[in-house]
């Protein structure tokens, strides 16, 4: 159990490093590698929550301008502004979840 926390910690660090230094959410695949030691269910849950937790980054931005910008971009893309705010962390979370699920499953065979 304690060892799980270590792997989760490493995964969190990798997830945020990739987030800060690369533009693409598929990098979540690599951030999920340390989760292979967890059970399949735990790996999937941890992967999703680590990835989606990056939504917290938005606290560095002033809220009113953030929503205004998302609204403008939403008009430009034909999507609701709020979707544009959550879509990256959501995809990042899903990518990590599926990757962790895969890695965990493969190592359990």
């Amino acid at each position: 159990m304690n060892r799980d926390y270590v792997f989760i910690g490493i995964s969190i660090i990798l997830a945020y490093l990739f987030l800060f230094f690369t533009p693409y959410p598929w990098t979540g695949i690599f951030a999920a590698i340390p989760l292979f030691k967890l059970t399949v269910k735990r790996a999937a849950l941890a992967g999703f929550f680590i990835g989606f937790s990056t939504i917290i980054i938005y606290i560095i931005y002033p809220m009113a301008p953030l929503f205004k910008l998302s609204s403008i971009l939403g008009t430009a893309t034909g999507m609701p502004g709020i979707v544009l705010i959550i879509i990256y962390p959501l995809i990042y979370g899903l990518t990590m979840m599926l990757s962790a699920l895969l890695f965990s499953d493969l190592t359990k065979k």
Partner: protein
Amino acid sequence: MRKILDAVIIALLIVLSIFSMNFSVLNPSPGIGVWDETLNSNYTSQVLKIPGLYKPVTVKIDSTGMAHIYAQNDHDLFMAEGYYQASNRLFQMEIQALAASGNLSKYLGPSYIDSDKAMRYLGLPYNAYNLEIAYKTNHPEFYEIAVAFSQGINSYINSSGTPFYFKLAGFKPFLWSPYYTLVWEEYMTLSLTTGIYEPLYSALFYNAFGFENSTLIWPYYPYYTENITVIPGDGTVNGNNLEKQHIDPDYLWSLNWYDSWATGINTSLLKRINPLIMAALKNISDPMMLPALHSMEETIGSNSWVVTANNSKTGYPMLANDPHLTLLAPSLWIPLNLVDPNYNVTGWALAGIPGILIGHTQNTSWGLTMSEGNSANVFLEIFNGNRYLYNGTWHDASFRNFTLLGNKYSIPMTRNGPVIARWGNFGISINWTAQQPSYVLIAELMLDRSSNYTDLMNALRYWGYPPQNFALVSRDHAGYIVAGNFPIIRETLPDGKNVYVVGSRSILNGTNPSYIPCGYVPYQYLPQVKDPEQGYAFAPNQATVGKSYPYPFIGGFWESGGRAYAAWNYLRTHQKMGIDDMKAMQSNVTDFFAMKLMPYIDNSIKNMNMNMTEKKALEYLENWNFTAYTDSVGMTVYWYTLSYIYNLSFQRILDSNGLDLLPLPFVNTLIYLASNYPDSPWVNGNFTRLAMISFSKAVSLLASYLGNNVSSWTWGRVHYLMISSITGSDAFSVGPIPFYGDTNTLSVGSVPYLPVIPEPYVTSSSSLREISCPGAGIFLGVFPGGPSDNPISYYYENQLSTWLSHGYYDLTAWRTEVTITYE
């Protein structure tokens, strides 16, 4: 089973990864996604390190968004200006530079290929290249200013990462150089040049309808305006006029200037090359033309007027200017005050160009409107393979070769200029002043440090193109000069006399040296007036100068004069003008041509059988005071009636001749026909009947869209302003906003004569408003936008509401909001 599950997960991951590639700009990390734009939405006081500055520079941003840049030398001043412009407008500047240099498709894809080809046909990239060499060689001290400006832009690029719009567009900024400044200058020149498109349109009209109709529909001087020229009087300039050359102006202006004696091309040949003319127009029609393509149509224009000290309540000369350009978000303009030991100038710079183009010093002020006299000419060329005929002998054409998106193109060059279209053995070339270097930047910077009227006039000796009506005031004097290079052609009149003329009504014979420009109008004989006796002068794009002018503007494609007529009506009825009068004129929405046309419409329709809605609409029309405010109902009824008149007459006739691309005649032509030739085929043989049908159709259309309650048919429900984003996306645009004005009002809100609801959006209007009285120290200004390109910034459109309500900012009384130090 587990293998299948794993395979499904892998497949999902692949799909998700590919799908998510599009979302990289939404990464929440600062510096990677677009969200850090929210951290830059307001200006903040700070110290910025800018390598290359000699000494620290202070930038104070006031509550209107104007930046006051204080430097200790010229290099630092213009470097700081470059940095400041880039920090607010880099994307706009680079898109403009790409458009002008014919490189948009390289960055934005194949849909921009026609724009790129048009720029290269017209020669802009090559002209700018030659101009840069000329500056380096002949005026290195001014070239250094362009270099310093570029250094400032590049310092910003190197320090800023990838700015917001570049992330969205998917490319990184390229480094700036003086070439890009000059090529953008060329682009602005093109958009304000007369003589490229107009003779082609004019030739098509002449081919279809002949001389009598050409002179009836497109008279050399538009109806009712020949006595309200920019330069007051009969056209005599510095003692020179046609009479001095023993030429009778009435004779000269009665001639058929489309005829072969004037153009070197006989009527049957001109008719034969219609397909070539069409091809030429197609090749040089640029879909990206930002500042609104100029044509004979009343689409863009500008206003300015000056009042002499004698007519001014302040006791000093005054000036007003509002140039009409396409309104963009962000604006083409950026407000600035530049201060160093040599400069103290305030006004508006064109983003991408150093200095201030329109503005004031402490002792002078100036404004610009378009002169509509030809500074370009189009020529018919005769080819034999790649050889062209000139003066009886064949010459090898040279070629400009270029590649766009892997495809190779080649543009033949004759001694006249680039060939913009070929058809059989014929070609059309253009020759315009911008093909020769002219030092507009020098003129601008000399204006920026002028301290008296003589300085202003001396500065404009350097102004080559595009020719502009320069309104000038100093503490003591007021006046105009139509500055720029006007190419002159030595014509032999049918009576055997010779005269130098500016431009042509049609295409000229490029094989015959007789029709090739042989110089420019000398500076001393450019149309000009200082302290006009009548106490005022005005230049809303009407005819430049009277019919006795020694260099007749045969290629003078003046606008209707509707706004000039309105300015003249105000100025002549106000013996003493105050600052409030200057404001009142700029906000004036009275359509004087409507005042002239309405009696004819009213007489035509008032006795017709009407339903209740039509009776009510007529009541509004008859009680209308000819103003185009947003709450005016009469304006709406008038405009839609007028639109149907155009639609059922002029437009129908042009369409039936395959000439739907031609501009529609001015409303003063319609007034002339209604009053003098009401049975003309141009008004369907019966103006009364045409007006009745048009009124009925207008009321029916309005009722079907707006309901039967006529009192609700306000102008603001059908007439909107749209300030479009340079990105082309509505999300970054401002509007639609219910808008006042029409084509002929000083506060302009031009829309085409189309019977559709709502009207097509107004996209070009007063791009800034300036009122100056240096003697009294009064300087007012406003523009429809803000300095920033950040769409969530207060400074994106902070001056818009003031501009919409015809308010002004006092440019001398400002309060520092933010101080930024560059060091």
